[in-house]
């Protein structure tokens, strides 16, 4: 409780002074560290340490059963590069990312444009677009597994009522991924929608008024004003979405368990399988590291791409 008093009374000044001046007593300069210490500790324990111990483990035959296996050198890494399941699950991860990211950006934008209005309709749209996002992955998966079910599922019920043949969505190798993508878009598009809506509401009305006076039509307003002013938001959404899609696991695990015949198994599930079902922590660590490197590369590419585009504004 004694700690709280100085911050309350001086209200924010410590941080400012710690940053600007250099000739202060040691105590004040390091006060900031004290405040971030809890987070630094968590960061070290749950991020830094596992990152390095994962690399360390990848050189051993470590088992989940508590046996610290012998040193293997690069054997896990060699096994990984020759393991077709690693490459097929990586491919699945990229296919999911490529299939899910564009609709999650475009549909979110369209939804935001539609919902950016006052009154009951606007409220209703905002509510219904965002509502699925609050559901947990388990609930979403359960709902969609039933919707896709052949024989008595909703989608196939509609198809047969319309005179079409049933589709075995989750158990056909070339359809299962699409089925997961559809469920994922339904579930998570609300978050991107919210970001777009906030950005839309931040565009000053005067710009549109001025454009209207200049005789711009709706189409011109959309393409010349709205979309360019949303470009930074789009960049942000694409970055967040790519990372989220690459880490796909929950809904696939729950909806198809990576099947049929591993056609939807993402890399995270393969890591999980090796590490936790088969107790091969060492091998799982090696694959995690490969994936880690890939994500770092993708992030750097994105950073390069979008740091250039910021000049638009």
């Amino acid at each position, binding site marked *: 409780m004694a700690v709280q008093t100085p911050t309350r009374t001086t209200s924010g000044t410590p941080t400012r002074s710690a940053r600007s001046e250099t000739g202060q007593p040691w105590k004040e300069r390091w006060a900031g560290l004290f405040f971030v210490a809890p987070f630094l500790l968590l960061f070290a324990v749950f991020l830094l340490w596992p990152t390095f111990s994962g690399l360390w483990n990848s050189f051993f035959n470590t088992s989940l059963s508590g046996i610290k296996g012998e040193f293997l050198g690069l054997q896990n890494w060699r096994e990984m590069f020759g393991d077709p399941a690693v490459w097929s699950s990586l491919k699945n991860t990229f296919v999911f990312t490529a299939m899910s990211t564009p609709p999650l950006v475009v549909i979110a934008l369209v939804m935001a444009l539609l919902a950016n209005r006052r009154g009951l309709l606007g409220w209703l749209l905002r509510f219904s677009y965002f509502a699925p996002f609050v559901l947990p992955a388990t609930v979403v998966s359960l709902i969609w597994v039933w919707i896709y079910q052949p024989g008595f599922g909703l989608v196939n019920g509609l198809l047969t009522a319309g005179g079409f043949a049933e589709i075995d969505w989750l158990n056909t190798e070339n359809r299962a991924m699409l089925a997961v993508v559809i469920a994922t878009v339904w579930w998570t598009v609300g978050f991107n929608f919210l970001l777009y809506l906030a950005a839309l509401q931040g565009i000053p009305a005067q710009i549109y008024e001025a454009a209207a006076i200049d005789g711009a039509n709706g189409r011109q307003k959309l393409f010349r004003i709205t979309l360019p002013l949303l470009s930074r938001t789009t960049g942000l959404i694409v970055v967040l979405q790519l990372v989220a899609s690459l880490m796909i696991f929950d809904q696939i695990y729950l909806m198809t368990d990576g099947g049929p015949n591993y056609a939807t198994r993402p890399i995270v599930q393969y890591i999980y399988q090796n590490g936790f*079902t088969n107790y091969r922590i060492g091998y799982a660590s090696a694959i995690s590291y490969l994936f880690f490197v890939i994500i770092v590369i993708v992030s750097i590419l994105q950073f390069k791409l979008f740091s250039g585009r910021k000049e638009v504004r």
Partner: protein
Amino acid sequence: MPPDSPHLRPRRRAVLAGGLLGALSLTGCGTFRSKPKVREWNLFGGGDGARLLQIHQQYVAEHPDVGFEAHTLAWGPPFYTKLAMSAAGGRAPEVATLHLSRLKGFSPATMLDPIPVDLLNAAGIRESDFLPETWNRCVVDGKLYAVPLDQHPFVLYYNTEICQKAGLLGADGKIKPVKGVDAFLDMLKAVKDTTGKFAASVETTNPWRMWWTLYGQLEGKFFSDDGTRLELDDAKALEALELMAKLAADGLVPRSANYPALVAQFTNGDAGLSFNGEWEVTTYQTAKMPFSMAPFPVVYDVPKFAGDAHTFVLPHQSNRNQDDTKATVEYIAWMLKNSAAWAAGGHIPSYQPVVGSQEYLSLKPQAEYRSVAPDVLFDPDAWFSGSGAQLQEEAGAAFSGVFSGQATPKAALAQFKAATQTLLDTPSPV
């Protein structure tokens, strides 16, 4: 009033102290400890899980002197992962359920503590109370690591109304046993004609139990005697797969159904039969549908039925408390002696005094398939085998295509054999 005005402090502290006291007494640790604790982890999320809760309520009522806590975790890999991690860390619960087929793959030496046989005997449980082959599988390197609770074979469920209409019931109202492939197919066709949809519901996304039953009935081998080489009999394996493909191609079973769909299709009458483990009794009883159960037909040469046994194990604890262990062993003994109630959930008790009891014999339909207990066929013995382990996963991936028509039996078998060989080539992590 400002939030940290001085005269509020003592009260806050009092609340904090009270909370600590409460937490200590809840976990039962430290000097507040008064009674032995038994924490149990299980994986019964299906119809049998509802039954377990009732049994536990009775146990708690009869044992006010034991601090008992039961936790149901998600079946399969999630359960075994959590159990393995808690045991590897030495902070496991006092007792957990484990599939007997997973015992060796679970690394008894590092992740389980041996069960003190003297305590078990003192609680009234003896080796002679079990089928020898079941008991012997619980012993690793001369030490007892598991106490079997039940056996759970692959069985036949049948809707009595539909089967009555299909003319499959005998004068006693039970399904007439069939033997041989042709009789089996005739039975299914009769049911399909009655339902207008399917004959039987089966889990096509993971047909391991179905295939293993059929392959076992053909007396197929899996590993060489020393367990180092894969010695599948291709002709027999294909015969079983081809029958499965034919069932789906003829529309006798669905081309695609996961576990919940299997249950639903039998409940809503789309299928008059169901091929599954016996643990969904409670589900169908709750649905108030007319059904009974029987051993799975002997389609091929010998009666064999894929199955497993649930056992109680003592996951490894670094500091095992003697009072807790004694109470835990007594809990295990109590569960065995009261396993007629557990049998109501479908499983065949392992404890033979209960198997012969009137209480069990009068359970219908649970006692109808008890004769198969000696013919239960366990999974192949390997670190990657057993309920929810990788071998079943590989079988699901390869064989589901046989039902859906996306893979020929030949291709499916080749894929399964390659996957098994890869696992066999991987050094055991336990």
